[in-house]
């Protein structure tokens, strides 16, 4: 995954939020929202574009790519997670939490984030706009294998299954770092057939749900 500087992460998040409010996002909108010059915005857009997170024709609107949307959502989620964590657990005032979350969101690693998520889930706390059960999507920047479409390829990131099923899947050669391609779907929509390495495997969607992949 491409790592962005905190400033660029902020730009990405802003584009994401603006895109939810308006139909098309322009450089001017971003500059206004963040209170920065248009030149800096253009600079940032170029970096984001090179990283494959946005599409932007000259003078045209800025559009997020699939991976851009994912990354933006991840940052956005982290922001809310940290803020709500600070408010609910540490009793910190809203404004301070908002301000500091903005900075912390860029530096926290996956492990810490995961720990916070687990803590909040265990204590039945909520994060605004997000379902903590689906947090994997943002943390691993990955999709469930079951969400891939025919023809999609992805790199296996994590196998969530337990016990025998996990061992079975792994011993059949589905290993982290391997590339899988969805070859087809059975007539009833389930199971799906995959190519993994040199052979073809079929799994039910329920099993494929347990496998997280980074889409190529």
């Amino acid at each position, binding site marked *: 995954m491409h790592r962005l500087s905190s400033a660029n992460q902020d730009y990405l998040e802003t584009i994401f939020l603006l895109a939810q409010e308006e139909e098309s996002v322009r450089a001017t909108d971003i500059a206004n929202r963040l209170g920065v010059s248009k030149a800096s915005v253009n600079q940032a857009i170029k970096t984001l574009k090179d990283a494959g997170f946005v599409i932007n024709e000259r003078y045209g609107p800025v559009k997020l790519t699939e991976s851009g949307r994912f990354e933006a959502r991840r940052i956005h989620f982290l922001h809310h997670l940290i803020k709500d964590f600070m408010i609910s657990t540490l009793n910190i005032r809203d404004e301070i939490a908002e301000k500091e979350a903005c900075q912390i969101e860029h530096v926290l690693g996956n492990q810490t984030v995961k720990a916070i998520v687990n803590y909040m889930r265990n204590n039945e706390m909520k994060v605004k706009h997000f379902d903590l059960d689906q947090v994997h999507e943002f943390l691993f920047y990955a999709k469930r294998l079951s969400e891939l479409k025919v023809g999609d390829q992805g790199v296996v990131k994590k196998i969530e299954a337990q016990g025998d*099923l996990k061992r079975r899947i792994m011993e*059949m050669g589905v290993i982290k770092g391997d590339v899988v391609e969805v*070859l087809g779907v059975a007539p009833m929509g389930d199971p799906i*057939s995959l190519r993994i390495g*040199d052979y*073809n495997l079929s799994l039910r969607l329920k099993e494929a749900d347990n496998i997280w992949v980074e889409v190529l």
Partner: protein
Amino acid sequence: MDSKRVALIGNPNSGKTTLFNALTGSTQQTGNWPGVTVEKKSGRLLQYKEIELIDLPGTYSLGAYSEDELVAKRYLLDERPDAVIDVIDASNLKRNLYLTMLLLEMGENVVLAVNMLDAAKNRNAEVDVKMLSTLLNVPAVPTIGVRGKGMQQLADQTRENLDRKSQSFRIDYGHEIEHHLCKLERMLHRDNFCLHSQGHRFLRDQEEPHGFGRHNKVSDETVVECDDNKRALPAMPARYLAVKILENNQSVMHRLKENGLTEKQLEDIEKDREHLENIFKEDVESVMIEKRYGFIEGIVKQVVTKKRIKEGGINHKINVSDTIDMVVLNRYLAIPIFLFIMFLMFQITFTLGGLFADLFETALGSLSGLIGSGITHPLLKSFVLEGVLGGLGSILVFVPNIFLLFLVLSILEDSGYMARGAYLMDGLMRKIGLQGKSFIPMVTGFGCSVPAVMATRTLESKNDRMITMMVLNFMSCGAKLPVYVLFAGAFFPQNETLVVISLYLLGIFAAVLMAKIFSKTLFPGENTPFVLELPPYRIPTLRGVMIHMWDRGSEFLRKAGTLIFAVIILIWVLSNLPSGVAYASQESYIGQLGSLVAGIFKPLGFGTWEAATALIFGIVAKEVVVATLGTVYSTQGNLAMTVQQLWTPLAAYSFMIMTLLYTPCIATLSAIRRETRSTLWMIFSMGYSFAVAWVASFLFYQLGGLILSLVGKL
């Protein structure tokens, strides 16, 4: 010379069976595994008769998810063969080598058969077999099973390496894990949980575990000799046991506990595991699997040269197999194609089989004429004509049908389509509480229930297995075919195929219905995972298909020659006793027996003693139903005309339903008893099938009669 035992093992679809056939020729024998009574194949090497080759069920790992895999695992652990030939598919090296890793870790004396090099070449991959042999430090032979290439060399290598001491093989699991493995190995030695495979010498680990990074580099070479009397576990390398302990392998842990593993040691082991889990953030077993695959990856990189690989992705040359799948598994075309293939299967069986059957019947007719004029003794004449030719002849007529059905099933299986069938049918099967893999035994059930019952061994879940076994009987087997052909031919000559197909569909419906009921009542539970390989399509070899067909078809012939023949003689004798009665009349013993139970079948439309007798003896083998009718109606050749005069079409169809659904034959029942290891389930299967059959026939006959009378009034 001493007989040596060599096990043949490999992934499913690695071409293991082809290799087995090529290596053993016609010396094969089928028997049962000791203890588990699951079918076992063994044979002697053509080249070296003193070597017995045992064909183990195909398996991906030794994790024992299904009965099949358990058999393979148990054989290796308990029988300790002199050598193991591991068949690996060169076109799918990585996954195939996983099993090799497990075998080597177990300390097996492995000879690699690197098969399907041609298929690998088609995928633009060159495999350096020599390099593979060097890297793993085991003999490796390139083979192409379908063309019999490399067999001599494989036999030679196997013989040469029979007494090879197993090499200590180590996968480097990385510093953290190695540290704990080392600790465990030491514990195992110290407390004599030993552990040496034939002459295997173990090295005492050095105190400082950090130098343990690369395998085989142990500085302190003190040899630990185990005290054989104290040895608590079968000869296993300490390393293997240590690995299994860390993986928390239940059976190894269980054995250790039984053999005096102290609470303290158990606690330590659990702490070790916990420690590793904290480091890796994952269960130790998964980490080990990953490490093994990592090790394999390294080997594959050195051994395989691939041309044209897309950067970071999958080799994009679309191969033939995937092209076929694009059509055959197409969302919209798949089901029509599937149905067409099933239709074709029956069409071949009946139409082509019918042609052969006609020839056969003509020959039989002229034979009986010939014999009839040759024999003068009346009793002997009756025995030969009515008993042997009437009874045996009426079922031998169906030999072509049955062989053809097995031929088609073999082709479906060997070509790789069967797995696609399981894939396509999974959605439907799940609706009735089963899974796609149950489809394979069910289709096999169209041939014969006995191999079908055995084929359930590939199912991982006990519930799936039980349900499948209990409903298999409803899949109309080849032996029931003669009844349909006889009655459908006699009563519905214009719609013969349609009638037969309707019975097959009814059987499927009954199976589906009962499976649904069972999954809700007797065997409730979660749907089991469905992980199935879709092997590449292969053109079945004539030889392979023929062997396959002969293996199963000859069982029918053997049955006809022994069991069925015996029953026919019994029927003939019972038909002639007490002395003085007219042959096979109601006064004869057989007539009395039939009359005794005929009442049960009265509401079904065929409450005659002849039908009752046929059904009773049909339990011995379903082929006997027609044979008995042939005897009791004492016809020579044209049974169809006789039944036409004596039965109504409605009763005939009702009788066909009964034959389709009622109690499985003795061979199937005993297979069920063996596989379930329970007499109770066998009895259950007998009783409930009969009940289902009776109810189905009853409903059909009574409702059918009602409708016909209504139609008649109009």
